């Protein structure tokens, strides 16, 4: 049975193996650093994909979850000395809790209410954290203690943390897609009323889906705080992250397992490359939102969808 799995999925396993040993074979730390950030965006996009791609309820403030995870780590590590990667998981749980808070009143309603509420999520948290100085450090942010080893080691550790989280995100998406809950979510996306009358408890499943979609970005945020050793409301509650989550996921293929990763891989690489060749700030947002609009209008199924339908390549 294991043989069959290996035979079927060998390209993916090969890539995973390569990425697993990458830090040891990479010529420069720069590449490891680059990949870890790419993984981070892929995790956020992958989380968004669960509620936006599979369930058909796009969220417009996913940065809220990233930021909550980051602050959870920052506060717990710098004030209470709790080990960072545990705080990252806690951060994910905090994010999921916030998702419940927002989701509970909005997901039981039909209409644009969920979208409207998520639109303000990130911004509201930014203001909240900016003004709760005593707890959150306000505009000055929070500094985390520097890890006691060389920077290359920290980067390698964070790389693996992000890598494992990414694998968890993708695996969860894969299992979800094949499960009955995943089928129900897709039916909710296709026709919520028909799903409801077919026996699907739509509100409950939407809520679970939303909380799951918040958990992974929360963890990513928690890891990021440790990596960056300094966070403030402007860096972790930024609309750019919300936007990238949507764009990377949709460009790659919302509602597919590898769509978000592929979208992140392509667009984030372009973004970083552009940053190093010509430094025109803000151009990336313009270009990416333009690309995303084109995707929504002309090929909403994204790259993976295009490859599947028009060319016939079967990517999960």
């Amino acid at each position, binding site marked *: 049975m294991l043989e069959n799995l290996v035979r079927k999925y060998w390209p993916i396993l090969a890539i995973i193996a390569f990425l697993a040993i990458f830090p040891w074979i990479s010529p420069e730390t720069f590449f490891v650093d680059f990949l870890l950030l790419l993984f981070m965006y892929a995790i956020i996009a992958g989380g968004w994909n669960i509620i936006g791609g599979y369930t058909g309820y796009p969220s417009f403030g996913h940065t809220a979850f990233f930021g909550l995870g980051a602050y959870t780590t920052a506060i717990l590590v710098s004030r209470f000395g709790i080990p960072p990667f545990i705080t990252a998981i806690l951060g994910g749980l905090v994010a999921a809790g916030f998702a419940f808070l927002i989701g509970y009143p909005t997901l039981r309603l039909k209409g644009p209410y969920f979208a409207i509420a998520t639109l303000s999520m990130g911004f509201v948290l930014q203001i909240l954290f900016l003004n709760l100085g005593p707890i959150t450090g306000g505009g000055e942010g929070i500094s985390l203690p520097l890890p006691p080893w060389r920077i290359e080691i920290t980067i390698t550790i964070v790389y693996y943390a992000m890598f494992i989280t990414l694998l968890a995100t993708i695996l969860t998406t894969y299992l979800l897609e094949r499960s009955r809950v995943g089928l129900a979510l897709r*039916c909710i*996306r*296709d026709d919520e*009323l028909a799903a409801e*009358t*077919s026996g699907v408890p739509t509100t409950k499943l939407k809520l679970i889906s939303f909380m799951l979609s918040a958990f992974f970005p929360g963890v990513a945020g928690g890891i990021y705080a440790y990596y960056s050793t300094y966070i403030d409301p402007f860096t972790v509650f930024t609309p750019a992250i919300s936007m990238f989550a949507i764009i990377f996921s949709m460009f790659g293929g919302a509602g597919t397992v590898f769509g978000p990763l592929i979208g992140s891989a392509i667009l984030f690489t372009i973004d970083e490359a552009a940053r190093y060749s010509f430094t025109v700030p803000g151009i990336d947002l313009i270009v990416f939102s333009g690309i995303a609009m084109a995707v929504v209008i002309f090929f909403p199924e994204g790259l993976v969808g295009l490859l599947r339908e028009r060319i016939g390549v079967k990517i999960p």
Partner: protein
Amino acid sequence: MHMLEVKNVSKYFGGLAALKNVSFTYDGGILGIIGPNGAGKTTLFNVITGVYKPTSGKVFFEGKDITGLAPHKIRRLGIARTFQIPRPFGRETVLENVVVAGLFGRVGRVSREEVEKEAMELLEFVGLKDKADLRASSLNIFQRKLLEIARGLISRPKLLMLDEIVAGLTPAEVDRVVELVKKINKEMGVNIIWIEHVMRAIMRSAEWIIVLDFGEIISEGPPEKVAKDPKVIKAYLGEEYVA
């Protein structure tokens, strides 16, 4: 205790009365609900299946008050329904369309393999077996209606509510569906409440007819009696046609 009891149900949308004090009881068999357009038939279905909350009144199923319960709970209690304009899960396969209702529509845990097996059997029963792996959006209207039926039956409902199931079909297709519905009732023992406009289909299949007009019941009885009722003729054809 009746299987279904609708008691003084009214439904207002703003100032518009879609249903006015509708009451009837139902104890099984094939019940037909007819009436001119806008009479409130689909609204009645929506109230019974939990899609709408009635403005006033109650609905009882097997003695239990189901008024205003969420539609998925009502499905699990044993009432399935089809939609006037079919609502397939377009991006999923035909098989998955049925399977999802089989997994979520009934009480109790059941394995995916079992449900898929049953779903295939139902697809064969309605004649869609060879389409099982196609996307539901690729089906034509007749096939979509058959899919609605299969999706309704998979949860082994006690009551299947059909909303204009033969609307928009050719005469041959109408006959096919009518035969299917009779079979479902007689062989599978599923009770049927059936909204219909195509008189040919309903009048010879139903055992009892309820006629709605402007949100009220204006006549009730076996098909032959209702067909001759002057109130019914007036509702459909207008004053002058009453003999």
